[in-house]
């Protein structure tokens, strides 16, 4: 977005629409490739997409709005549990309705938790975000009549998608639904981050005092962004509830929140595709390496994080972009 040249003759909206179309095509192509190459791993691919929605959501608050949080799994878990509880206890099994419930629950949880988290700055903000996710975790554990406690919430049986496509054993329906959902969310988020509202959030990230001096509401804008981000993560939670048919306490954990942050930074903050690439790389390698030994995985992630922070602070995508511009300049 930064390299929009002033010499181009086409209007801006046409060029951005063109870019969005290309991005959507690439997304669809990658998804199709995953479907063809790894037909036995569709469950993993669906999980990756669910986590991508969480990391995209985190990118909205951390990458675009500058709120440091180690508790973002709160909104993901809220979506997952809301969709799961409505399906298991009230018989709301239509998958699209479950997604909508997840998004709504995530938005509400996001707005509520932001009221607490935004009260702090720096260290106190981090601690508040950790406290919020831990509180939600303990509450879900205590309310085991509703959530199944540490056994997890089971008995979720989603009805066929649109009344036509059953959720099969191989996870084909779930995967295709997930891809369509991801593309839809991606397009909406592209529009949001480019909108005046998205620009305002970036302004707040850079200098909240100046934004306030301009007369724009800082606190309320961030709460709104949090609600949007909550809806996105809630969709991810609902998606994972539909695809795996269980909701575990780990979807509301501090570990999940920390991992989401790691994925975001690995990919690159403040870029939607950075969040998606980071998640893809992280979850894919996690699955491969931790099959051998989970502790080796932990060591590798740790070392990788240190290296990324020291040598590639803009993440994998940022490093790739730097390399690309350097190569282009040389040729």
């Amino acid at each position: 977005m930064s390299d929009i040249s002033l010499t181009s003759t086409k209007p801006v909206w046409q060029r951005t629409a063109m870019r969005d179309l290309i991005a959507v095509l690439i997304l669809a192509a990658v998804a199709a490739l995953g479907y063809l190459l790894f037909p036995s791993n569709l469950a993993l691919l669906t999980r990756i997409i669910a986590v991508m929605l969480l990391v995209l959501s985190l990118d909205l608050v951390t990458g675009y709005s500058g709120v440091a949080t180690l508790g973002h799994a709160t909104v993901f878990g809220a979506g997952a549990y809301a969709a799961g509880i409505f399906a298991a206890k009230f018989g709301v099994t239509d998958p699209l309705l479950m997604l909508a419930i997840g998004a709504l629950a995530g938005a509400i949880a996001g707005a509520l938790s932001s009221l607490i988290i935004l009260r702090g700055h720096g260290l106190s903000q981090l601690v508040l975000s950790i406290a919020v996710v831990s509180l939600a975790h303990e509450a879900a554990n205590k309310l085991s009549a509703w959530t199944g406690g540490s056994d997890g919430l089971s008995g979720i049986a989603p009805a066929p998608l649109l009344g036509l496509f059953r959720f099969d054993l191989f996870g084909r329906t779930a995967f295709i639904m997930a891809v369509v959902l991801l593309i839809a969310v991606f397009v909406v988020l592209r529009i949001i981050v480019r909108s005046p509202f998205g620009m305002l959030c970036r302004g707040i990230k850079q200098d909240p005092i100046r934004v306030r001096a301009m007369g724009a509401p800082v606190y309320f804008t961030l709460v709104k962004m949090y609600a949007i981000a909550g809806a996105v993560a809630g969709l991810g939670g609902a998606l994972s509830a539909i695809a795996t048919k269980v909701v575990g306490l780990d979807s509301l954990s501090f570990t999940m929140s920390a991992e989401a942050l790691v994925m975001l930074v690995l990919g690159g903050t403040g870029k939607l595709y950075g969040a998606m690439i980071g998640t893809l790389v992280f979850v894919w390698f996690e699955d491969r390496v931790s099959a051998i030994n989970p502790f080796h995985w932990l060591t590798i992630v740790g070392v990788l994080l240190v290296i990324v922070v020291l040598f590639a602070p803009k993440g994998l995508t940022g490093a790739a972009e730097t390399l690309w511009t350097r190569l282009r300049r040389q040729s």
Partner: protein
Amino acid sequence: MQTILSIAADALAYGMVLFIISIGLSVTMGLMKVVNLAHGAFAMIGGYIASYATQQMGLPFGVAILAAVLGTMLIAVPLERFLYRRIYGAPELTQVLMTIGITFAIIGIANFVMGPTLKTIALPAQLQGPVDLGFRTIAAHKLFAVAVGIIVAGALWFIIERTPFGVRLRASVDDAAMAGALGVKTKIVYAVSFALAVGLAALGGVVGAQLLPIEPYYALHYMVTFLVVVSVGGAGSIAGALVAALLLGAVQTTGRYLMPEYGEFFFYLAVIAIVCVFPNGLMGRSK
């Protein structure tokens, strides 16, 4: 009455252990402004060294404590020189990520070297049995933890308030650039304070090993608790950390005794309430 007394005794011992470990974190956060999530990992390393020294090598407890403190410092000083020094003054997010990375790596390595099982530290005979205080008997190692906590608090107060090093430390906290201009070698002050903080973490890890058992995920489990203590107390404040550690220790212990089914619910509720009302901590300086 009996219950109240045993809760109070446990809360005091637990709070003191929290204080010993967290005060080091409070110093690094107050001085270097580094959100060091790897602090718990250093406490864990101390515990591992002490466990190895007492169980495998058969060294006495006192020597083991010394070995733990010095050994952990030896590991931490190169980390300060090559990793932490690069993130002084960086945004919180960067610091959080790098120190989480260090924590993850230490957990993985600890598991590889020491195995995933719980490690115990052999206590000397004097610290094993209960001690009769007249009105109540209390486990000797808990009394020991309380005593160590009081000594640490006193010694730190003395070092920071009454020694030339303390003067330089406080000067660097207030204005690192100005202190440097006046001839204070801030880099050395930082390195020494970091070593001191890590040594305290190791000491707390050893002294508190009965209450916070040593295992690879120690670094992650208790990291949040230590961070919370510092945040509630106010970074850089000894008295604040002491009050916060005792207060939160009391909340956590009481919750565990009276309402175990709620887990840590009330602990985090208290944290949210305190941090919302005092964003800079109970005794932190406002920015």
